[in-house]
């Protein structure tokens, strides 16, 4: 089995980028980072790993998405379009306020996606995996992988696009079941 230190040296940057980009919070990202390597090393104890980068990307994405879903599921649902938690990303001097808000909304929208869609979408667009690679690592067909990515993009577009006039009529309380 590969030594953890070597694994961290070779792939630490890539895994850290994945988990931090998705989570934007150092503590959460740290937990996921460590969990990712732990899971990968356990796999390596029982079978040969053909591609460490691909395996680590997938586990990191899944772990970070799980954490993101937990984060946004914790509080009672808030009003439509409102992120339930403040973005924990550290302030960046050059970042505009709207980018900050955009990340809030993007994370909330990602957290609402079905698991497989979110994973496929992230692997495709942020980790630059091909549909064939995604298919192999998610154990689906390439066509299915493309569909998952496509559906995720559609769902994200729907969630992130400005609300339609009709939808603004909705009572925000309804999102929580009328209270």
């Amino acid at each position, binding site marked *: 089995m590969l*030594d*953890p*230190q070597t694994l*961290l040296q070779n792939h*630490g940057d890539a895994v*850290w*980028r994945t988990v*931090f*980009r*998705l989570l934007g919070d150092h503590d959460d990202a740290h937990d996921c*980072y*460590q969990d990712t*390597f*732990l*899971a990968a*090393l*356990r*796999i390596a*104890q*029982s*079978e*040969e790993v053909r591609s460490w980068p691909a*395996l680590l990307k*997938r586990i990191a994405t*899944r772990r970070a998405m*799980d954490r993101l879903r937990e984060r946004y599921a914790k509080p009672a*649902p808030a009003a439509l379009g409102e992120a339930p938690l403040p973005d924990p990303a*550290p302030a960046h001097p050059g*970042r505009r306020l709207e*980018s900050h808000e*955009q990340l809030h909304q*993007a994370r909330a*929208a990602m957290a609402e996606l*079905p698991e*497989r*869609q979110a994973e496929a979408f992230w692997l*495709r*667009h942020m980790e*630059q995996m*091909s549909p064939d690679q995604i298919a192999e690592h998610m*154990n*689906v067909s390439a*066509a299915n992988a493309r*569909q998952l990515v496509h*559906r995720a*993009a*559609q769902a*994200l*577009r729907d969630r*992130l*696009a400005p609300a*339609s006039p*009709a939808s603004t*009529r*909705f*009572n925000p*309380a*309804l999102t929580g*079941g*009328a209270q």
Partner: protein
Amino acid sequence: MTPNHPRFSNPQDPQLDPVVAGALDAFQAQAIPGRPDDPQVAAALHQQLADAAPTNNHHNNHHNNHHNNHASRKRVGATHAEHDPTPKPETMEPETGAEDARELPSPFLAKRFVMRVVTPLAAAAAVAVAFLVFFNPVVPATPAFAQVAQRLQQVQTVTWKMSVEADQGVFEGAGEAANPGFLRQDINLPGGHVINIIDFTQDRMITLVPAQNLALEASLGGLPESQRPQNFLDEFKNIDEQHATFAGEEAYQGRAVLRYDILRGDTTGRVLVDPDTQLPVLIEMSTPTAEPTSPTTVTMYDFAWDAPLDMARFDLGVPEGYTSPIEMNFDNPTGQDIVEALLLWTTMTDGEFPDEFNTWTLGSEFEALMKGGKLGDATPEERDRILQQRVADYLNLDVELVREINEDEDKTRAMEMLAEPIGNTLGRAGTFLGIVQNAGEFAYTGAGAKLGEEDRVICWFKLPEDEQYTVVFGDLRTELAPEPPEAPVPPTAPEPPAVTPEAPRDMPSEPTLPTGPAALPAE
């Protein structure tokens, strides 16, 4: 959001929607701090690996049979990632999956592009949830029913036949359930025969439409906690003590059985129990419906308790020969889904609200609508043109694109861009309606109303945990109210049924139920 000038571009997918690209851009533009210290993490990893012996047994023994069925269906050549013992379990992919969408039979959606998908799905989902919540209002226990309750605690499987008598007709079906959370229902609905399988251990559902070899997969998480069984058999076990009164013996199928009358809130009914086995032979429950013309009565009979079940019948995989073109998401249905369905309906009718709106007929009514039922003498071509325009309006698509999609030989775009969003709208609404109709309060008073009538009450509802009623008005705004609004009396409404909490309906001693096997087509 400022998606106008996204910096993000994936060279393999240059056509990303600007809004989505903007979101990716925001992710990518974040400043990434330095990663954790390698030696420190490495030491922690060493420690954790030493502490926990590795295990490859990622199948839950409790679900062994069922999950092994899934495992055996997994694609040959699966990679190491699936053996990751620690990530959250995922739904396994059947061999026949969404990729088969391209091979849909040619008549499929040729003109009525969405309805053959959404109708049975919406109906099935709604009915499934209706059954789930039906017994929930009947909770904890009384000594009079203690023996039966105790016996039910030991049950691991059950099969039954069922009959649903509602304003819209009588629906026949059959059901099977097994611990720890498997449910299968075969139901003849107005929209056709459907098979609905739910695995609550995965919060997943699949609906099969045998007439079309169609499989529709959906997630079903996030039901209100009060309505979500951890174990479907608990729904039977909940019929117990506190609200069950022993009412003596009565004859059932030529033998003496014990009768318990059920009374809880607006729900009334009876349970007939075999004195030898102390298990129910018939359960009949009535719940007042929204339009107070008659209650909905569900009767379950011909029970087989602890009969050996073929667990493969609970398999969520897509059966051979079936196509699974879309994925539905019924997670966390809310009142907003009702409003959304009304928005869809009024868009499709140019502003008219439906004559009836309930979980049982939502799908079939919408199917009739999409067949041009509200368009009078229009020619088929005119109907298609009008309906396509309205679909485009609802989905905020260019009508030319909708028409182009409708002519596609390959129906992938039709499924993804048209069927999926509309199916989700109806399915989610049907699911929420199933909850409020059976476990909460719901009334629909929108027949004859037009979109924009801001003073007209269209419907109102209240979940058990809600403190106030949510009222939906003709302009689709919603307001909370401490009391339900006074519903207009339908012009031809018959006398309300003699079912009240104070005076349970006098049930016949012999149910008028089919005696042979339920007439269900083979799967």
